[in-house]
């Protein structure tokens, strides 16, 4: 029984939706547990007083990445079948910058605004409303944005392909980068929190 189970036909459409609900519940649960349903805690990342966003995000990324590496090694999961969002350099860099501005102005990202709303934050629901409106604006202006949206296409591209280094080495490098980031986060947090 090899993964991905859904793509290989081991589970059907209905079961996949029940699984989606289960995954969502655990996802929302862990976000809330770590405090990422709180706008003040999320915003504190960008003032250096609480680096939970970075710590949790990068721990999750390297945990899943190491898991993917071993699943692939053992032949449990065919990574060729896992969906990879195609790279479009310019819109993804500009989109990221715009997203960052919205994040610090609104205090949430899409997933965390849902968690905030679910735990009773009215500002979380305002953020969700703003996002739905923003998506509508994007959709209505899409004909004008289409050429930039599709600019600088690189196709499905991973860091291992791009730098042409082995999968395991790339995992090792990114884990080291994350560990250095955690060490720096702890330092910055201690310094800036004691100042206040």
């Amino acid at each position, binding site marked *: 029984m090899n*993964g*991905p189970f*859904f793509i290989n036909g081991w*589970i059907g459409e209905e079961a*996949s*939706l029940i*699984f989606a*609900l289960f*995954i*969502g*519940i*655990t*996802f*929302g649960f*862990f*976000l*809330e*547990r*770590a405090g990422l349903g709180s*706008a*003040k805690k999320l915003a504190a990342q960008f003032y250096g007083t609480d680096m939970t966003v970075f*710590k949790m*995000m990068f*721990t*999750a*990324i390297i*945990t899943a990445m190491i898991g993917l590496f071993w699943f692939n090694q053992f032949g449990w*999961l065919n990574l060729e079948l896992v969906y*990879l*969002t195609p790279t479009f350099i310019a819109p*993804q*860099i*500009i*989109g*990221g*910058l*715009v*997203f*960052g*501005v*919205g994040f*610090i102005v609104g205090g*949430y*990202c*899409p997933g965390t*605004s849902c*968690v*905030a709303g*679910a735990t*009773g*934050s*009215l*500002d979380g629901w305002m953020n969700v409303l*703003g996002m*739905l*409106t923003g998506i509508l*604006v*994007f*959709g209505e202006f*899409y004909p004008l944005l289409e050429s930039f949206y599709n600019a600088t296409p690189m196709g499905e591209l991973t860091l291992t392909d791009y730098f042409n280094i082995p999968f395991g080495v790339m995992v090792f490098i990114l884990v080291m980068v994350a560990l250095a980031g955690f060490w720096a986060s702890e330092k910055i947090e201690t310094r800036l929190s004691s100042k206040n």
Partner: protein
Amino acid sequence: MPFLSKEAEPYWNPYLSGIGLGLVLLLTFLVMGRGIGASGAMTSVVATTASVISPHTTAANDFYQGYLGDGTVSPLKDWLVFEVLGVLIGGFLSGLFAGRTRIKIEKGAAITTNRRFQYAFIGGMIMAFGTKLARGCTSGQALTGGALMNVGSWLFMISLFAGAYATAWFVRRLWV
């Protein structure tokens, strides 16, 4: 229920919560061959609403069409829509068990509630725009693509931190 009135519990350790989230993400890859998301579900809701209000313009719009499917099933019967419903349930339950689910408004001490609502709304609009340009958010791009070592996702992630850090000083009165 006694836990409704109790004091809010401390948050869990961010690294342990991160490992939990990482394992959830890994399981999603193994079972579904895709990662998690959030903004995609909101786009399905918007595309569905737009198609009900003005079916002709949405039919001619490739962006909406990508979320509406071939019309044989409801576009809301979608993996991400179910996942985000789960996020709402999971967040609600976690907050409830920890004494944190209650009606509240989170804001810095220096601004009024009205102001906070305005900025939450505007921030959401800006963020949605960035998300759509980048083909994903912190869940679908940063977490999912980050773990898959997707070049575009890493560019998005670095840019989002850069954008937020560059803006933080100008909006500090919202938070500090």
